[in-house]
């Protein structure tokens, strides 16, 4: 390859030489020769023109870029000449790089990616902690205190999720949308400049209830206002109050990576938007709902800020012992906060990345072993090149370039794999109106990661073979050819060990994914504890249009009565929560007669408020006692079997009393329901508490309508009914239970299974490549021996069997080790996932059988090659 500047120099040299020839010719003519003779003689005297140019060009030296280009060209030529090797190596590394890149992309989206704000590294999180909860927010008063007193920060802001109704005009039906309350100069503190209009001015975030101003998210501005620039100054009705639109946030702005709130309003408007609250969150120091972000002052470290904030927290605890005695304040990094908020995400990410790196490592080992096998056959070529003057560092660099080219090709393949995987992960929609997204994307960070992985891979896979082939080549290869195996035994043993390890790892992964499939199959036929078909669900919240408690109760009672009368409806019920959605409330309970361990005075149990027909409508079986009556004369509750097993083992539960909540209200147990699944199908049995409607109610309830007909067809009549009761009543999450269950509950389990399954298959594929490599290598090493065997009478099938046996024994060893590892690994996994059940003999039989079959197939090709060796050729060659 030639570059422009060297092309210019080549032209210069050509001119220089032509000038030389012209002058020499002229001299010859002056000496009396004919022009033809003169030209010929000048040329003869000059010598080999091409050679002169060649050696002169060499004087310029090669720029390192030209050298790289030449190496790359040479590498590409070598790779083209060995398409089988190239394909295998590129696929191997591609799988490894793809797996790591995809998992990094996922982890990046969930954990690592910094916020899209100015200088995110200087932004820290302030939280309050109790011994039970390490990551609570701050109250508004505490936030103000920190903002006014902390000298470590140049800006302090906070946010809280809000779920309010919005309407563009007074006559539009309000819809619920998620947004954020924000405190102080939110955008200024984050260093985010609105793309349109402005952020909040200081005077707009001080006086409670005075400033109805709103900043829209870019997405919301796009979808609701068609991205009109004239939107500034117009009004958006939030919970019925007209808010002036003052700005539009930048695209993809997020302060919590997975949340895309539609609007931002000052926290000072909270009490006006939500007057039903019994204590004013602007005043009450025990309402700690604010997520605080602060920007460190220049030259202030996080440790310094931490120390200051901790002492501020201690001072607060002294001033307000009632509400702060158990709380301490802390400063964390954004990453630290994300890990603290969702430790399971961190654990899963770490596990997946570890797994993926293992896969990459296996891939590297494979390719290294392929390169080693090839290095042997190239030893002679290298020795010749060394002896005719190529320098060893130059050859080393060239061989490294070769593996670099390989791994860059593999990175391309890997990124394609990763792209498919990420597109798939991105397509998973969590079944809720809350705009939670997994912001996976193939951005620059992920691509850089892939490139880094490729370079690392090239070094890991390429350096050792290149070094070893040089060492081999320098001394004995010229003389001894391929036959010498001194020192090779250990390396061979190590490589066989590697293959055994690979097979074992893929056995572990396959057994676990086999178990998951098995568990999934059972999950499908498993009774989740509720009816999953023929039910339509609608969520409502009359408090959004300012219903009083009495009005709300009345509304729901009428609604469910009328719903029952709709044609085609079998049953209708109300519930404050539906299974598999974390929207039930946690209730503090003290079961009668239960002795808590020291230091604990109450238990926290998930609970929901349901009406009398909930149990029959949703098919929840009552094992003892009765369902709720439509009116109860005294406070009652229904518990599940697990509750009884845990708190009243071996006792009669009916008639027992429980103290509930902060005011210790006494309720009597009137029924025991069968334990179902509440949050995930894989969960362990959880205690659960049902409380009766209308004795209690919540403003946000779900209407469940059961029908024999297609449930989806009930959506129209139900909405019609709601409108007829109150045309302004907001309605959301209208969906049928079957779709919700299949997509939202089974879908997630299915995805988790697929990820592990894909890892298992990748490992299997790589293990078969590894096996192929090792057998190929062994064939290459033993060519002479094979030749001799054949010369003294071994037939081809015997030679084939020799290598098949080798492959088979390696696979068998790996499988045995893998099964040995899989059993404890499975035990560990099943401790956390109840759905896994027991090890099925079925999986334990299928996986090894598959592996052996794949191993045989992988060993077949080199074995066949071995059997095609011509003893005449091999024996003469050396």
């Amino acid at each position, binding site marked *: 390859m030639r570059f422009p500047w060297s092309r210019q120099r080549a032209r*210069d*040299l050509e*001119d*220089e*030489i032509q*000038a*030389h020839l*012209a*002058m*020499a010719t*002229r001299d010859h003519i002056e000496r009396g020769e004919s022009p033809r003779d003169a030209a010929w003689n000048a040329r003869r005297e*000059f*010598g*080999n023109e091409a*050679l*002169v140019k060649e*050696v*002169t060009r*060499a*004087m*310029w*030296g090669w720029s390192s870029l030209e050298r790289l280009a030449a190496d790359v060209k040479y590498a590409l030529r070598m790779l083209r000449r060995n398409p089988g090797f190239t394909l295998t190596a590129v696929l191997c590394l591609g799988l490894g790089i793809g797996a790591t890149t995809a998992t990094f992309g996922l982890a990046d989206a969930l954990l690592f990616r910094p916020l899209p704000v100015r200088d995110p590294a200087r932004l820290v999180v302030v939280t309050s902690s109790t011994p039970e909860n390490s990551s609570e927010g701050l109250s508004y008063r505490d936030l103000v205190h920190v903002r006014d007193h902390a000298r470590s920060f140049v800006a302090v802001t906070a946010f809280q999720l809000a779920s309010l109704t919005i309407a563009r005009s007074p006559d539009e039906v309000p819809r619920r949308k998620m947004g954020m309350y924000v405190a102080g100069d939110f955008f200024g503190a984050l260093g985010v400049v609105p793309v349109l209009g402005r952020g909040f001015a200081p005077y707009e975030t001080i006086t409670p209830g005075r400033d109805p101003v709103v900043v829209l998210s870019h997405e919301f501005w796009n979808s609701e206002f068609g991205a009109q620039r004239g939107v500034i100054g117009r009004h958006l009705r939030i919970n019925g109050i007209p808010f002036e639109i003052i700005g539009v946030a930048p695209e993809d702005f997020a302060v919590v990576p997975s949340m895309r709130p539609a609007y931002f309003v000052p926290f000072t408007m909270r009490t006006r938007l939500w007057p039903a609250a019994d204590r004013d969150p602007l005043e009450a120091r025990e309402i700690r709902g604010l997520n605080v972000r602060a920007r460190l002052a220049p030259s202030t470290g996080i440790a310094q800020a931490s120390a200051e904030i901790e002492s501020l927290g201690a001072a607060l605890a002294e001033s307000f012992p009632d509400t702060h005695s158990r709380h301490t304040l802390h400063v964390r990094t954004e990453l630290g906060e994300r890990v603290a908020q969702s430790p399971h995400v961190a654990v899963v990410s770490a596990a997946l990345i570890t797994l993926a790196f293992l896969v990459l490592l296996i891939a590297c080992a494979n390719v290294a072993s392929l390169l080693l096998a090839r290095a042997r056959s190239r030893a002679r070529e290298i020795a010749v090149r*060394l002896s005719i*003057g190529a*320098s*060893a*560092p130059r050859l080393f660099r060239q061989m490294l370039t070769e593996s670099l080219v390989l791994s860059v090709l593999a990175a391309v393949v890997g990124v394609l794999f990763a792209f498919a995987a990420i597109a798939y992960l991105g397509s998973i929609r969590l079944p809720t109106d809350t705009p939670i997204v997994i912001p996976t994307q193939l951005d620059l960070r992920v691509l850089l990661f892939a490139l880094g992985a490729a370079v690392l891979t090239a070094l890991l896979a390429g350096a050792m073979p290149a070094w070893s082939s040089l060492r081999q080549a*320098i001394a004995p290869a010229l003389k001894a050819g391929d036959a010498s195996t001194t020192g090779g035994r250990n390396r061979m043993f190590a490589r066989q060990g590697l293959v055994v390890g690979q097979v074992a790892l893929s056995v572990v992964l396959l057994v676990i994914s086999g178990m998951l499939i098995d568990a999934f199959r059972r999950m499908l036929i498993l009774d989740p504890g509720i009816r999953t078909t023929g039910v339509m669900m609608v969520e409502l919240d009359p408090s959004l249009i300012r219903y009083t408690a009495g009005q709300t109760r009345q509304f729901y009672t009428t609604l469910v009565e009328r719903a029952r009368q709709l044609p085609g409806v079998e049953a209708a019920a109300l519930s404050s929560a539906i299974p598999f959605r974390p929207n039930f409330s946690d209730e503090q309970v003290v079961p009668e007669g239960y002795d808590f361990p020291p230091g604990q005075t109450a238990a926290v149990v998930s609970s929901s408020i349901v009406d009398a027909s909930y149990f029959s409508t949703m098919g929840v079986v009552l094992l003892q006692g009765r369902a709720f009556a439509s009116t109860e004369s005294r406070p009652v509750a229904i518990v599940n079997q697990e509750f009884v097993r845990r708190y009243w083992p071996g006792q009669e539960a009916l008639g027992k009393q429980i103290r509930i909540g902060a005011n210790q209200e006494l309720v009597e147990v009137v029924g025991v329901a069968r334990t179902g699944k509440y949050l995930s199908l894989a969960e362990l049995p959880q205690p659960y508490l049902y409380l009766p409607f209308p004795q209690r109610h919540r403003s946000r309830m779900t209407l469940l309508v059961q029908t024999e007909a297609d449930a989806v067809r009930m959506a129209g009549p139900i909405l019609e009914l709601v409108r007829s009761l109150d045309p302004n009543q907001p309605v959301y999450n209208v969906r049928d239970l079957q779709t919700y269950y299949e997509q939202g509950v089974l879908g997630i389990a299915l995805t988790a299974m697929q990820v592990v399954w894909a890892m298992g298959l990748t490992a299997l594929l790589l293990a078969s490549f590894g096996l192929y490599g090792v057998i190929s290598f062994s064939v290459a090493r033993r060519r002479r021996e094979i030749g001799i065997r054949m010369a003294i009478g071994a037939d081809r099938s015997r030679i084939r069997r020799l290598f098949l046996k080798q492959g088979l024994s390696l696979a068998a060893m790996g499988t045995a080790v893998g099964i040995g590892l899989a059993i404890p690994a499975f035990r560990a996994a099943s401790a956390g996932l109840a759905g896994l059940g027991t090890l099925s003999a079925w999986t334990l039989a299928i996986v090894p059988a598959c592996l052996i079959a794949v191993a045989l197939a992988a060993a077949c090709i080199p074995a066949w090659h071995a059997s095609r060796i011509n003893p005449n050729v091999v024996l003469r060659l050396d």
Partner: protein
Amino acid sequence: MPPKREAYRDRIELLQGTLDLLILETLRWGSFHGYAIANSIRAGSGDLLDVETGSLYPALHRLEKKGWIRSEWALTENNQRAKYYTLAPAGKKQLAIQKSRWEAVSGAITTLLNRTTAEGGA
């Protein structure tokens, strides 16, 4: 790197050094193109040293790369466009160094040869 190659390279460098010295010395008298330098060395050495173009041009380009000589395109008296080389300041310094080194080496070799001849003849 194998030791054999080191020795080989040393030999080349010695030869190159000699040619470099001759080129630098020639350019001390003005700027010349390659053809003129070759003629001048041949004529100046009484036709004893015939510089091959295969050595001359690499040497010129190498010296230019080192910054010891400079080049520019100009017309000869016969209106032929040619590349003229001129001694650069660094080249002048090098010339002095190489010249004294050459004198030392050749003096030493002469002494050595004379002694050997004397002993051998005794």
